[in-house]
């Protein structure tokens, strides 16, 4: 299995794609580890979700998770 990573809104445009897939390893334990591995230091105000629920950079991830990164939300 893999961890899927989705990007939304301006973040998707800046990164240039709407998703990544990554094979879990021992070093990739948290949401923040995933971002660091793929993109380096996280920007301020980066928001994240794991399995469609809000998460933080220190939220743990595991095989099969659906992870998402996005900028501050602006609905309503």
């Amino acid at each position, binding site marked *: 299995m893999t961890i899927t990573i*989705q990007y*939304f*809104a*301006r973040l998707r445009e800046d990164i240039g794609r709407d998703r990544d897939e990554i094979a879990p390893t021992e070093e990739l334990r948290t949401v923040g580890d995933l971002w660091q591995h793929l993109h380096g230091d996280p920007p301020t*105000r980066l928001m994240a*979700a794991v399995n*469609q*629920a*809000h998460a933080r950079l220190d939220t743990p991830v595991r095989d099969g998770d659906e992870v*998402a990164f*996005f*900028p*501050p*939300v*602006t*609905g*309503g």
Partner: protein
Amino acid sequence: MAVRLFDHPFDPWALVRERERQLPLERLGACSVFAGRMRDFNEAEDIRAMFLEHYPGMTERELERIVAEAEARWPSITCEVAHRVGAVEPSETLVLVAVWSAHRVAARDACAEILERLKHEAPFWKRERLTDGTERWVEQNTPGH
């Protein structure tokens, strides 16, 4: 609880009236409603249109969670929440929050709370197209408490 997403224009007052046909209004003395529309200006710029991106799946879960938490905090309330997604034109309704309760303070406070949490927690992102043709993402919602 009822949470709905629309990818086409909807009439907020028709939604409220339709919901009320199923409610015991003789026990719900108070109804507080907020309807948010797309304006044709934002921060002194003229806006021609908007695209509302969202995170299908998480959006519905977040809206349902926000409403469920309000219903836990104000146990007597009944709620209806609707939100547009996709392409939107000025004056169309973006969001509807309606709360019924026996008493006005619960209806009013829960309506305000649901709207604020929706604006800061539900995964929607507005992209505006200005009248000069350029586009931009709205960076952040303003605090409303």
